[in-house]
């Protein structure tokens, strides 16, 4: 019956939180009950946003906090998070939050060569957005008139707040019921922890290490250990960042997300499961950077790279888990037009092959963000023309099973523009395993109208003329096994 009760709770939350795309549901003492993510960073940062908001604001029922500060638990400044307090028990006129519900908005980020977090966009520390169900007019007006606020920023926040308030009403009806009692929730988390422990127990025991060089002086080191139903990740030895920076909660999310991805089962992420995972990310290293380091590249391409390091280390412990590296650079680029508008480009990548199957062509392996991707719409809105987009030939690493292919896309400018780009390359290409070869790394090339061809470095900005073309080549995944073992078709 305990397990049927767990099932009932899991299904209940799935239905209740269906209207929210990126969400975390916690008790007010920070037991994570339910998590729905769209990026690796969400895994660690969504609960962290709720926790930081509660610590500093002591939420009451109906309070909504807004934050977009990665150093207060957020991910990137373009993705603000709202946290609502939910409670039913009123004492001395105060209805303290018994539960916290966080929800994150996906907005288009700005791509630039920022040196600090504040150059990446509007960073909002945890701030009251609604107080006891009523809008905080002063803050809303301040956000609306802020020069860094994007168009419709406040409207998007208000639309999300409306959804949160509706979900809160429904949650309030449930939390008085027996199956949502503290005892029942503790039992739910305990059962989750036990089940996850059983899954970990099926893996080989041991230690695996991996070192991934980003630049000559920038390295991620990970030591993974599986032992007695527990998994431990230690990033000791990782250098300080020079170009790539991450917060510890984002690092935690990438490590947990990568581990769960490899287990091949639908595993919920809650405090019971997390009790079986321990992570050490030394302060000052690039996996636990301090304010005011810029975080966009670290919290996008950097987390994909870190997830690869984790999966490659785990694959060294248990061959069943072996998974070649997937492409990590999404070749983020922004095109700025003469009328002041801009458009962002992010490319999917090829995934690494596994022991059982080739990699997959052209996916956002660690992201499920719903961003627009219509060619006709892009061409109608902006003076550009896409002349080609398709799988990038030979970008997947050869192997018994080949890595997935990245994307090759070419865009022609219809007017003079400025482009800015910022992506992560590493010292090595996406690595194959068990004899498989590496996939191709990322590349961006400018074909000028005068016939010259220029390969771009990993970050910068440049003016382009009407008729110039950009070709973006996103990385492929590594292969698995020796190419000569490839099964005949």
């Amino acid at each position: 019956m305990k397990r049927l009760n767990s099932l009932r709770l899991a299904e209940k939350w799935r239905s209740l939180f269906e209207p929210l795309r990126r969400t975390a549901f916690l008790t007010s003492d920070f037991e994570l009950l339910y998590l729905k993510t769209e990026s690796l960073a969400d895994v660690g940062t969504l609960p962290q946003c709720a926790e930081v908001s509660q610590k500093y604001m002591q939420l009451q029922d109906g309070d909504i906090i807004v934050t977009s500060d990665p150093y207060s638990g957020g991910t990137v400044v373009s993705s603000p998070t709202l946290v609502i307090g939910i409670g039913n028990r009123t004492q001395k006129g105060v209805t303290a939050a018994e539960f916290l519900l966080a929800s994150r908005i996906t907005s288009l980020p700005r791509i630039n060569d920022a040196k600090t977090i504040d150059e990446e966009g509007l960073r909002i520390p945890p701030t009251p957005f609604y107080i006891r169900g009523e809008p905080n007019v002063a803050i809303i007006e301040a956000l609306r008139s802020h020069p860094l606020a994007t168009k419709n920023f406040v409207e998007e926040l208000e639309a999300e707040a409306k959804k949160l308030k509706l979900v809160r009403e429904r949650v309030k009806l449930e939390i008085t019921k027996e199956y949502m009692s503290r005892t029942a929730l503790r039992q739910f988390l305990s059962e989750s922890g036990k089940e996850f422990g059983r899954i970990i127990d099926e893996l080989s025991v041991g230690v695996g290490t991996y070192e991934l060089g980003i630049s000559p002086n920038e390295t991620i080191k990970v030591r993974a250990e599986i032992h007695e139903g527990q998994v431990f990740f230690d990033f000791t030895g990782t250098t300080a960042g020079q170009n790539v920076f991450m917060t510890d909660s984002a690092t935690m999310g990438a490590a947990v997300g990568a581990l769960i991805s490899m287990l091949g089962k639908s595993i919920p992420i809650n405090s019971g499961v997390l009790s079986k995972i321990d992570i050490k990310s030394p302060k000052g290293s690039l996996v636990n950077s301090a304010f005011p380091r810029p975080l966009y590249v670290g919290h996008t391409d950097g987390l994909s790279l870190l997830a690869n390091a984790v999966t490659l280390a785990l694959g060294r412990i248990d061959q069943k888990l072996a998974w070649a590296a997937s492409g990590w650079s999404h070749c983020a680029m922004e095109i700025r037009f003469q009328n002041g508008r801009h458009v962002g480009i992010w490319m999917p990548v090829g995934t690494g092959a596994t022991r059982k199957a080739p990699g997959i062509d052209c996916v956002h392996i660690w992201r499920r963000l719903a961003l627009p991707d219509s060619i006709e719409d892009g061409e109608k809105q902006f003076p550009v023309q896409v002349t080609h987009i398709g799988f990038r030939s030979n970008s997947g690493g050869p192997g018994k099973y080949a890595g997935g292919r990245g994307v090759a896309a070419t865009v022609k400018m219809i007017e003079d523009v400025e482009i800015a780009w910022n992506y992560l390359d590493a010292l090595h290409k996406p690595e194959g395993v068990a004899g498989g070869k590496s996939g191709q790394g990322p590349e961006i090339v400018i074909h000028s109208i005068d016939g010259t061809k220029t390969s771009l470095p990993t970050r910068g900005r440049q003016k382009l003329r009407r008729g110039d073309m950009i070709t973006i080549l996103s990385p492929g995944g590594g292969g698995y096994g020796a190419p000569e073992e490839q099964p005949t078709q």
Partner: protein
Amino acid sequence: MSWSIGLHFGEHFADVVAHQKDAIEQGLHKRRIFYSQMSPESALTQLFADLKVDTISKATIFTNWPLRIASSNLGGSAAMLMTAGFENWLEMSAPIVRREFNSSPSRHEMPIDRELILGVSERINAEGHIEKLVDEAELEFLAAKLEMHKIKTLAVCFMHSAKNNENEKRAKAYFEGKGFRVYVSSRCSPLEHQSDEKPRFWAATLSAYVAETFFSRLKKVQDALAPYTTEIFLGQHPIKEIIDGHISPLKTTHGYYDILADNLTRTSGLLYAGLEEFAFFPGYEKRNKTWPSPYGPVAIPHATHHLTRIQPLITLGSNFHSPIAFDEDGLTYDPGPMVFGRGLTPTFFDILALQSDLVPTLGITEKFSDRGRSRLAEQFSAYSRTLSDDSRLSGPDLATLLFNMATEMMTDEIRNWYLPNRFQIIGPLANVLAKPLQAEIIDDEFLPLKLAIREKGII
């Protein structure tokens, strides 16, 4: 005496309403056909013999076969012509099957072979100006290639064709002249889909993909009706226009649900509790522009409805939380639920079969087998032993618990689409679900078909 016939074909069941003209209520006959025991065309022939039908003034057919064929990968060989440079575009834009991160993300298998997706050197720009006119010499080469592959049906998907479809029209005229059946994206989609090309392209592509299989099934039904009538309609379209390729098969596929929504849900919500599908219609939102296919949105305008997570044949398996849980996928009626005697995996339908309110349901309960019932009882007994820890749980208790959980899940889910507490429910499984869902039952599961063949005196 002349008859009006309404037919609703599902994947495994067909509902038939036959109305004898000039007769009143007693002239109305209803029947449910289960294909596993008899093909639709044989069942129709037998029905007409039973009723002594000699002439039919009009037969109106509804079916979602095109959607079923598309989502089950049962279509025939077809090709796609795409603006050169974008041959991979639909495949690379298709959604990932599982939302959770995993080491082997996958997409639904593409309906068209990669080697049959052919680029055409043409281009319309965003303003609708022709930058490169389609070249007949190139089309001639492509036609030869398609003939070599024995392809007879193709989709034409050119960029910005909703703005200017001159190149698509030229390609269509050329290939139709060569005897191909051609679906062009600009005609498969209404104008409001101009903002994103993919739903339009998918509409043309899936039309081409399902055409062969769909028409082969439809032809058998047409043949069974032919001795009685030539007035055969698929929804509101004459069947001939569809088989001749003038109308996309996808345009006809939501006809039954359109009737439900148009007639029953103007101010309230409605749950259709069918044998093959549960769908909820929120009354406040009448039309949807796209169908959320496994390949991504497809431009098929239809009555807005949501498929519930709990479906009639959703299977029971294990998940992280429990050794018995509702899976994400389901079975079909071949082999069907355990209670029918051939299936080996329990389904939600089996749980329903154990509820007394299900009995009797026309054309269903007589299909239950004793062997199936006994295997089902054993299965639930085994599950209950697995789940019992500190408390004793019998097999029937477990079935009741799961039934309650499923209806609670449906209620919670419906609340995401429709806030008022009360809604209506219709369909063959409405009886068993109405009470736990606190829904108001429309006690005539054949009402949509009766509305479709609306004749004075029968409604």
